[in-house]
């Protein structure tokens, strides 16, 4: 298991250094500095030298590093690093060099608690926040709490403490989908799939029992699909679904119901994937012509393929230009288009495209003479966007029921968001 946990800044200076086992020396930090921090071409997140293995994750301007001398569970080590990052973000608002330095004592306290002899221990943020705090005085009352905390961190609902009270009981559900799309130059969709998350913010009193329902067929390929079997309209077929540990998987296994006692506050309830009948919100048609060796002409049309009441926002197209481009003239009826020489792209930014509408950009790139005989490789064009209240998979939340023994009423809200972030690519 993990023998040491470190945080480095970009210069390779040690910001946090904690050894859990005597098989490691503090000076391994120097090896990491040489092998990763000052190496411009790092080609693996895991490096093994002799029997020592370095697992690192970069976040903002710091490196999170876990070192082991055993045949550690690599997935576990990285999941732990990710968990540390989310705990730190939740505690300090952000995770960067400044945040690490300003909170280094608390970080030492945290990693002493969540990692024992290199074995990850209870790391539920909400629970941790009740006993790892910067409050300086701990009274006798705190002692009584400590016994409770101790019991809770080891209990079967370690993610939630008892006695939570809200005046207004509310739960917010956000369904966030990322569309991955790759279209060939001839306009065929090579791949289109959706990875979705159901994020929940629960502000509910007591120990609420929640039941959650979607319009999915819950196929999950657990029972083999009969060939050609059809399903009722309006339902969505998920390839896979994975759940937060609060969800009772044994219940899900028996009757496909999603039941759980939620952690307090924000958490990821579910993660899923859909591949069939993905609704692509934006259709891009690029026409790119190389005119001799001096010009490239672009006509890029983008159409919003969804309900007119909705609109796509923060639309950004990155349209590649040849490396020897000197200048680009752009004409567009909507948004701003600008040539960005550093990235070799035309960046076309459109604040809002209403459903059903279409906009077209025309542009001409002028090229310099070049001795390079290589043809232009034409990397794919990509589009980033967000569409609120739309799911590319068609997934909808049907209900969220909350039962608590005190019988209070709760208010539930649901939001949908579909977005693309470097994952919506069109070849031309």
């Amino acid at each position, binding site marked *: *298991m993990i023998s040491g946990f470190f945080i480095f800044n970009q210069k390779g200076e040690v910001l946090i250094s904690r050894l859990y086992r005597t098989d490691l*020396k*503090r*000076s391994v*930090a*120097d*090896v990491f500095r*040489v092998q990763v921090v000052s190496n411009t071409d790092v*080609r*693996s*997140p*895991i*490096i*093994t030298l*002799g*029997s020592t293995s370095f697992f690192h994750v970069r976040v903002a301007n710091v490196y999170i590093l876990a070192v082991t001398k*055993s*045949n550690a*569970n*690599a*997935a576990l080590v*990285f999941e732990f690093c990710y968990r540390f990052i989310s705990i730190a973000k939740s505690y300090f608002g952000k995770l960067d060099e*400044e945040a690490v330095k*300003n909170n*280094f*004592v608390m970080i*030492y*306290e945290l990693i002493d608690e969540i990692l024992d*002899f290199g*074995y990850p221990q209870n790391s539920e943020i909400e629970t941790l926040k009740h006993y790892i*705090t*910067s409050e*300086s*005085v701990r009274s006798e009352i705190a*002692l009584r709490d*400590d016994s409770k905390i*101790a*019991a809770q961190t*080891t*209990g*079967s609902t370690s993610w939630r403490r008892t006695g939570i009270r809200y005046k207004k009981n509310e739960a917010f559900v956000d369904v966030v989908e*990322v569309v*991955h799309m790759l279209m060939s130059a001839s306009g065929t969709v090579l791949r289109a*799939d959706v*990875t979705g998350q159901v994020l929940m913010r629960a502000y509910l009193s007591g120990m609420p029992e929640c039941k959650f329902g979607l319009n999915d067929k819950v196929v*999950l390929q657990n029972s*083999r699909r009969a060939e050609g079997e059809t399903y009722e309209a309006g339902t969505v077929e998920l390839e*896979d679904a994975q759940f937060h*540990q609060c969800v*009772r*998987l*044994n219940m*899900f296994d028996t009757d496909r119901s999603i039941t759980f006692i939620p952690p307090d506050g924000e958490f*990821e309830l579910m993660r*899923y994937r859909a591949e069939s009948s993905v609704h692509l919100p934006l259709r891009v048609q690029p026409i790119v012509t190389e005119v001799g060796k001096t010009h490239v002409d672009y006509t890029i049309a983008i159409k919003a393929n969804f309900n007119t009441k909705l609109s796509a926002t923060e639309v950004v197209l990155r349209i590649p230009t040849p490396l020897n481009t000197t200048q680009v003239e752009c004409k567009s009826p909507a948004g701003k288009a600008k040539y960005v020489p550093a990235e070799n792209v035309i960046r076309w930014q459109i604040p809002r495209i209403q459903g059903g509408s279409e906009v077209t950009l025309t542009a001409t790139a002028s090229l310099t003479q070049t001795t390079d*005989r290589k*043809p232009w*490789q034409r990397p794919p064009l*990509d589009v980033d966007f967000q569409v609120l209240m739309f799911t590319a998979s068609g997934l909808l939340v049907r209900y969220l029921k909350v039962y608590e023994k005190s019988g209070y009423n709760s208010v539930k809200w649901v939001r949908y968001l579909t977005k693309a972030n*470097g994952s919506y690519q069109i070849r031309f």
Partner: protein
Amino acid sequence: MSQGAQDGKFFSRGKLQEIRDDLHKALSKGDKKWEKRKAILKRVLANMTMGNDMSSLWGDIMECLNTPLFEVKKMIYLYVMNYARIKAEQIDPAIRALLQDANDRNPLLRALAIRTLAYIPLPIAMESLCDPLRHSLRESDPYVRKTASICVAKMYMFDPRMCEREGLINSLRAQMMDENVTVVANAMAALSEVQERGDLQLIKLNASTALKLTVALNESSEWGQVYILDALMNYVPQRPDDALALTKKLSIRLQNTNSAIVLTTIKVLLYLMNYMNDKDEIEELCHKMGPPLVTLLSSGPEVQYVALRNILLIIQRRPSILRNDVRVFFTKYNDPIYVKLAKLEIMYRLATEKNYKEVLVELGQSASEADVDFARKAVRSIGRLAIKVPNSSDRCIGLLLELIKSDASYVVQEATVVIKDIFRRYPSEYESVIPQLCEKLDLITDDPESKAAIIWILGQYADRIDNSHELLDDLAYTFLEESKEVQFALLTAVVKLFIRKPQDAQGLVAKVLQWATEEVDNPDLRDRGYMYWRLLSSHASAAKDVVLVDMPPISTDTDRMERGALDQLLLHTASLGSIYHKNPEGFIRTARPKYLADSPALNTTSRLVLVRAPDLDAPVHTPAPANILPTTPGGIRELAGSPLLGEMGEDEPEGVSMSMGQLIDEGEGEDDPSVGITGNGNGNGNGSGAGRAGAAYDPYADLGAMLGDGEEEAERRQESQPLF
């Protein structure tokens, strides 16, 4: 919350005397709410972190031990853990304080105390820990009990005999039945570790206890689930039905968002499948594993990498798992290079008659990417695909010729190498491409491997290429400066040329044979030179029969991998070993080999190929556990080439800054990273050295070096047979 914390100011070099004076002031005068000593301790910890030696403050800091503040205690204990070893003679006050806290009313403090005490690597600390630890393992508070479980593993690492003598291992085993699942999970983790270090089988499970553990999974924290799942690997099913029952309980764990749980579950399921007979049930399980594996590809890039390296192994054993999912492994423009490289290998593996067209488009895109290593491997995959899927070869050749037009030297070189292999698979089908290759001769000959490849082609097809003798004459001009690989290729090619076109090559063959036999040191080259010489001079017609005989075509039978070794390697799914495709004992000094256990339930397929544990009583000649030919994960290969980086010397003084050159490899070879990690050879030690060395000069050896299926050795042998 501490959003407002401003501890960053402590990150400046502190003068020892100044810190000491400040501390004394704080201790002697009023220190309201201990604010002053807190600030001073933070300064000390910050300096400790920066690597400044704070050990001389030991005595002063011990004076703060009585501060009744959790936060201060934690800081002092951190300091103590850090310097205990060099302040061994002054450890007493710290141990006294820890023992006192171990009796506190507050369970969090009790746990902190034993946890800290067990981190102090001194005999006196361990001795004083025994009593409180024995008590803690059984006390009422589960938080203290779960902390105590791990403490036993810590103590075992320090002094195994003391641990056994004090009966702590037995108490730890008793915790396997604890009512609290967190305690059970930690006990499992600790027992697994102790078991790994010692000789005893401590976790003994039967069908009913194994099933009970699956119930504990329902209540366990996510890390706890991983520890329990790992413990299940100690269970050896005695009946196929028992294995099946367990898989039914476990497969739902695949639906967790934590990749460690998903991959560890897959490890257990794959393991249990060895003990199952029902083909339909096995298929059903495979069917369940696919989607969660694909979902892992939406995690962070590091987890994606772990998942991909594992997938590459898993699909070799259970090809049905992702048979229809090749598209999800298409690379994205913004994937990190290590993810792209791992995907590339999977794409090749999953390519079939049905999907090769899409795969080829992808490979073509990859081959024109800026990263040289990636582009090279993509080109190589195209060539491999041509050999693997016969129907694809026309398209593959077409694509390769398209790529050659780019004039990127590495693409041209790589393409030449694979085209040579395509010729060896489909002799005389694609001769028309030779002129196009010859046009790029100046690019090809920059690299020895591709140079050797083009020389082979020129020799093999000497009679179909008008100016082959001129080209070879030209290439042979620098014979004496060439690498061995090229020299061998030249020798053979020139002899072939001479037999096919005697009048054009008389002078050349004499020249090359003379060089090879008189001016080259390499004995193999010299011997081969003499052999050809004698053959040509004594029996020209026999020479033709020997040298120009038709070779059997090469192939890439991807299932020819050693199944038993794969079964053994899959016992390490999710771990480092599964990333490097090496059994851990092959690259980690302290790791022990794991073997699939025999039992009446073991199915015939698995038994047939079972890699058994070496019999300790038998004479030593048991072969080392066989290993499949591992593929090379990105980023690892160059490490192999770097200077030997071995163990950090245990006795190296604290604070001495190390440069790479100063690292000492104390492992004496067993820790040699070039053995452990390159992943290009045969693996651990059973005669792989010869294979590596062979690859260095044999121009035919490279096929599959990248995707390394393990058959190239066999191919080479097969092809060599007619020669001898």
